[in-house]
């Protein structure tokens, strides 16, 4: 594979090969879309679903990439490798291989289908992979909508340890994400690079939320202070 998707897929697969169980790897190689093969959409989503139980379970608990592997993943564009379980890397590799063989106009539809018709783990994996895919700005509506759905794990797949929102969300959507993180008691430290996107409107929203909490006699999340202090 010569494209950037292909090279990224290869980099992820190098780590997957080093950590994945043998039978699961054999199975995966049958389903990884290849430039010279036919792309069968139904079959592809079968592999996308089945990757969970074949690579998750025991393997995820024990998955600790070596320092060299971490730098290789970072070099391939995985900015927060610790956020990826082994099965997430497998599913990212599947999406990368698919975008490598499909025409660009089909990419958004493919990833959207992976999210909408996936179980929670499939949704999480697809959303964690967004930054790695070619021309990632195209997936912004999908990422915003996934934040809106509030499946806590799905929300966190976008909101936490994921560079996508800071890089691509418009201000109003980014502010909603931060407010939702406050509401669901997610520490803001987990929202990648939120300080670079801090703005006056966000500080206002956080201030109103603080007032609402105080009026109700409830506790105030400590992160509200950091938003107001770092507001440019």
């Amino acid at each position: 594979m010569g494209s950037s998707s292909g090279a990224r897929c290869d980099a992820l697969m190098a780590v997957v090969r080093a950590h994945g169980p043998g039978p699961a790897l054999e199975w995966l190689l049958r389903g990884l879309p290849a430039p010279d093969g036919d792309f069968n959409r139904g079959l592809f989503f079968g592999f996308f679903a089945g990757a969970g139980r074949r690579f998750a379970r025991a393997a995820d608990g024990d998955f600790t990439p070596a320092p060299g592997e971490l730098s290789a993943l970072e070099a391939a564009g995985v900015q927060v490798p610790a956020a990826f379980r082994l099965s997430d890397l497998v599913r990212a590799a599947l999406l990368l291989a698919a975008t490598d063989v499909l025409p660009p106009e089909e990419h958004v539809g493919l990833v959207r289908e992976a999210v909408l018709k996936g179980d929670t783990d499939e949704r999480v994996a697809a959303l964690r992979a967004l930054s790695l895919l070619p021309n990632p700005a195209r997936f912004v509506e999908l990422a915003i909508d996934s934040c809106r759905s509030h499946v806590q794990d799905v929300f966190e797949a976008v909101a936490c340890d994921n560079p996508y929102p800071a890089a691509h969300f418009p201000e109003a959507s980014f502010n909603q994400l931060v407010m939702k993180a406050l509401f669901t008691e997610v520490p803001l430290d987990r929202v990648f690079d939120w300080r670079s996107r801090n703005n006056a409107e966000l500080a206002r929203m956080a201030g109103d939320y603080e007032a609402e909490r105080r009026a109700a006699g409830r506790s105030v999340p400590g992160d509200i202070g950091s938003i107001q202090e770092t507001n440019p």
Partner: protein
Amino acid sequence: MKMFDPHIHMTSRTTDDYAAMAEAGIVAVVEPAFWLGQPRTHVGSFEDYFLSLTGWERFRAAQFGIRHFCTMALNPKEANNPDVAQGVIDLLPRYLEKDSVVAVGEIGFDDMTPEEDTYFVQQMELARTFDLPVLIHTPHRDKKRGTEHTIKMVKELDFPEHLVLIDHNNEETLPLVLETGCYAGHSIYPHTKMDEVRMAMLVKKYGGERIIINSAADWGVADPLKVPKTVHAMRDLGVSEPEIEKIVWHNPIAFFGQSGRLDMGADSELLPRDQRELFEGNSVLRGQTPVVDEGGVEE
């Protein structure tokens, strides 16, 4: 005693049911895909139903510590609806790969039509392709003939009998199923199908080998605590504790475990609850204090 309810339609039940089931010792459930009380008019309704079985309902069960698995299929009643039948079959390959799907089911017979035969055969082949056991519903009307027909079809297809659970048995059909290598399910119902005392008497007569019991609770008059209630009835009739445990725990785990997907955790205990979690913006709570067990996932 830890219990497994291997056939219950939790999408139709309340959170009070989940709480009572966990309190009574039910640690895990299997929710078979079936019909919804009225005919569906689009294939899309099935797809959203399948997604809820692997998504929202699983999450809701976990909020009460219960492990939720499901089976996927075109049910026998709607196999007779040409507007949806083939479309649902076409959806199945994708959904049969999902992690929490532990069998193909409920398939089987309702009116015993040629269409039911056709889709029965197709779905048995899907089970073979996906290495999954099958859960077979036997009809309410003409049950004995329906059970005989089911067994004949399983044998004609040369489908491995240890991968077949024939459900909703009674005094007339149980001996037929026990002559095969199939598992025999019994739905304990308030008024129809089978009751606790009759079930206990069947166990006294036939023992616990390949015997499975369930509540089959759905949107009708049903009781999600029929498994624990039948445990009491079996005790009252002097069935031994190991035999009871085999029926309400080891047998369903052995059967659905053949899928390779029945993840019961390291200790097969109730999941740690964390009711602060949300799904699709909806908590199951309406203002109560969330129950958080030690070990519940801190988000």
